[in-house]
């Protein structure tokens, strides 16, 4: 015999007004009490008739037939958390690969601009000349294709960046803007 609270649960299910815990309770109730299904189906039938659906003399129950037909079906195992987000974040791998390549090329371009600004003869304005002279104190660019920096550690790091870029660009099929730079001894 169902309690009033349990029947109220069935009524709320007709209206789709249950929380997760109540859905658990409802599933358990349906498992343990056969009257629960009959009672719910009558509540649902009343609601359906109000909304214009026709009825047979007794409510039809297909759940057993369908459950039996699905007995051998494998239970699904889709992670529901992926559902709503899939459309927003499902960018293809090639997109990220190309973006990474372009970002690397852009950073090397920026380095090249800094290099041009450090050329002694390229100062076009007093402001640039000022920047140029300040940068000359810490960073110099020789006639070779290598960075020449006052501190050995910084110079090594910059040259390593150029080498890494050159190798990545070659492997990914991108044109390498750093191929003008050679890290070998001339």
């Amino acid at each position, binding site marked *: 015999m169902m309690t*009033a609270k349990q*029947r*109220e649960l069935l*009524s*709320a*299910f*007709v*209206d*789709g*007004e*249950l*929380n*997760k815990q109540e*859905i658990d309770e*409802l*599933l358990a109730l*349906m*498992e343990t009490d056969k009257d629960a*299904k009959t*009672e*719910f*189906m*009558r*509540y*649902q*039938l*009343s*609601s*359906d*008739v*109000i*909304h*214009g*659906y*026709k*009825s*047979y*003399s*007794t*409510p*039809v*129950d*297909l*759940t057993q*037939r*369908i*459950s039996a*037909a*699905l007995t051998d*079906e494998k*239970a*699904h*195992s*889709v*992670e*529901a958390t992926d*559902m*709503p987000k*899939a*459309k927003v974040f499902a960018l293809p791998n090639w997109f990220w690969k190309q973006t990474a390549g372009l970002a690397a090329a852009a950073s090397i371009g920026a380095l090249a601009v800094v290099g041009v600004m450090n050329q002694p003869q390229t100062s076009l304005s007093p402001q640039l000349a000022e920047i140029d002279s300040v940068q000359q104190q810490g960073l110099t660019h020789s006639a070779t294709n290598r960075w020449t920096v006052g501190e050995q550690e910084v110079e090594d790091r910059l040259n390593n960046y150029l080498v890494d870029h050159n190798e990545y660009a070659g492997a990914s099929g991108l044109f390498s803007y750093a191929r003008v730079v050679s890290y070998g001894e001339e």
Partner: protein
Amino acid sequence: MNVDQELVRRVQAGDKKAFDLLIMKYQQRIIHVITGFVHDPVEAMDVAQEAFIKAYRALPGFRGDSAFYTWLYRIAINTSKNYLTAASRRPPVSDVDAMDATIYYDAPELKEFETPESSLMSDELKQAIHLAIQDLPEDTATAIKLREFEGLSYEEIAQAMDCPIGTVRSRIFRAREAIDKQVKAVMGGEEQ
């Protein structure tokens, strides 16, 4: 919380029992829709079963872009048409728009296929339900009318009636109990 969405999520995660609840909730409506195409009630139930099985198999691909019932309704329509085609019977020329699935009332395309028995039964039930609602206390009658005729949620009814959601829930439950007594009487009369 959207209960259908939560049940779908559980089925997708492997809970077959959650699918039973979806069947129980929508089987009458789906059979009603299919009867508009497949006039024989026994055949209509077979087609409904097939539609639910197709829906279960397709559930991993259901992403919630539409309401679950609208999605299920489309499957039912397609299954009915395929059934008629396979049986070499022509499907109806005019369809019921899928967008109407969730607000579906007495579509003429389907009504013309009602049997006299089902029409009589539905009319008797409707009358019993309306009489039951008339006899309810005012607060209870208002709550069930706002729910069933106006389609308001419990929260909206609580705002409209200026009372807690729990009170709305229990009023609607009491109304359903009263309606159910009348429904049982009509059904009992039919069985005799």
